[in-house]
């Protein structure tokens, strides 16, 4: 036990490697832009928890359909509600859905992937063919099917998107595990009789970590996109609670009267998705030892 821990600290002590990673990050403009976009989005979300410029739920019929101004940067909707405040609150939904449903796919994907990768051929076959079956359903279709049975709300949408993405994680984990399994250090660990939890923790997880981080980041992007699509169809978050997709659905009726209502929520979605995509691409490049 001492030995493996010592080896790990040595790896971390080698500041040369750490410095190289930092240099890579500094030079990767996409990653930096993605990080700044995400940081500003998180800042906006955190602010919205404490304070919004206007009450996002308060209706004011006199102030309906106001075009963007200093007082209402994104304009107001048919009930005179401030769209900027509603978009701010909507970012809570987006980030929360992203977090929960990515956790679902990450958790179950990791579990099933490890199980398939470390078990006998039969268990592996059964799990992976089940995953293939699930993968045949496009995520949005699977979500709609599940929602049609369980009812449409944000909780079911989140769970459905999370489940639909389990196969992607499971496959990644399983393939990485299979690759590591035949390496000398993993064979040695098995021969020495290292316990399974310890093998997973110190031998397998470190090598899965890089691809998994990349996948998690891009999964956030995909999840936010799917949730906004479902909410746009009216199958995600329900009124009066705002979500970006829902805002787009509600505003489409007033497309000729108040086009700005259809512009800003879309920009918010693109902002969030761009942040996670750039971050994911950047992480992939940074984790790649060839670059």
């Amino acid at each position: 036990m001492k030995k493996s821990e010592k080896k790990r600290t040595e790896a971390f002590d080698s500041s040369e490697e750490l410095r190289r990673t930092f240099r890579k990050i500094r030079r990767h403009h996409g990653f930096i832009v993605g990080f700044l976009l995400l940081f500003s989005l998180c800042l906006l979300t955190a602010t919205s928890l404490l304070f919004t410029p206007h009450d996002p739920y308060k209706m004011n019929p006199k102030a309906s359909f106001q075009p963007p101004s200093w007082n209402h940067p994104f304009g107001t909707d048919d009930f005179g509600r401030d769209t900027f405040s509603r978009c701010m609150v909507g970012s809570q939904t987006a980030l929360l859905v992203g977090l929960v449903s990515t956790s679902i796919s990450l958790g179950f994907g990791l579990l099933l992937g490890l199980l398939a990768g470390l078990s006998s051929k039969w268990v592996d076959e059964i799990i992976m063919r089940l995953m293939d079956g699930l993968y045949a359903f496009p995520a949005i279709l699977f979500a709609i099917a599940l929602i049609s049975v369980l009812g449409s709300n944000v909780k079911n949408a989140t769970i459905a998107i999370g489940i639909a993405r389990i196969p992607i994680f499971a496959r990644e984990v399983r393939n990485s595990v299979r690759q590591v399994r035949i390496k000398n250090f993993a064979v040695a660990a098995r021969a020495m009789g290292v316990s399974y939890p310890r093998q997973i923790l110190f031998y397998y997880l470190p090598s899965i970590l890089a691809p998994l981080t990349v996948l998690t980041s891009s999964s956030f992007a995909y999840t936010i996109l799917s949730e906004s699509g479902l909410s746009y169809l009216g199958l995600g978050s329900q009124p009066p609670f705002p979500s970006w997709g829902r805002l787009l659905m509600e505003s489409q009726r007033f497309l000729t009267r108040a086009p700005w209502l259809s512009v800003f929520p879309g920009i918010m979605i693109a902002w969030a998705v761009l942040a996670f995509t750039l971050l994911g691409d950047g992480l992939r490049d940074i984790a790649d030892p060839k670059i």
Partner: protein
Amino acid sequence: MLGLDADSEVLSALRKELNLEAPAILRFGHWIADLASGDFGRSITYRKPVTQVIVESLPPTLSITIVGSALTLVLSLFLGILAFKRHNRWFDYALTLGSQLGIVIPSFWMGILLLFVFTLKLEWFPFGQYAPLRTGFFSWLRTIFLPSLSVSLVAISMMMRMVRSSLLENAREDFVRTAKSKGVPERKIVYKHILKNALGPIVTLFGLQISSILAGTIVIENVFSIPGIGRLLLLAVQRRDLPVVQGVVLWIATMTVLINIVTDFVHMLLDPRVSL
């Protein structure tokens, strides 16, 4: 379906009609057995067999998928080859930036924006209609062009990047240098040597993109109010017409699997190094 205060007689009649009195496992068995013989059951709201309902709304969805896939193939190859030829010049950078935006912009938002500009402001395209192909090619294309474009935007962007990067990768290979030193014309090198070798991964990605375009029609048809499978699915969910929901879900999943199989097959035909 009948409301909370429905008559108990009406209720029991409906239960009988929908065969809800048998135990769940038996009904599931019936459903699977019917499915095996190609029977998806009857729609509750349309009072017609589900298969018929699906077949009736199939043409718009297939049209959008086909036109979207064709747009994807043509535009991404064209732009990707152009970006490859002008590698590291402003055109290449502009396309890379554009494709990044194309990936992150939700297709339904793109649809709304296109709808606003081209249908409501410029009135170039009609809204909420579908004209079958037999009414003429151009009137058919006019009704589905915008939906096809917005649904395939992500696919175009992803494919274009793939075409560009795999062309660049193959251009570094030894056989390209050999061809150059032999004096093979530039055009022939690009199309005959580089493109042909890069085609494998491009075909695989294209297959995946066709399935994602098919899935994307679910949302996009609702943006443009086009009476296809996606619109049918959403209405069925709202009206709790579960047989239709099951039918559509199974149909799209089956199509996805079929597309994947065909893709693998085409990949094998194009590249003798790959076997099934």
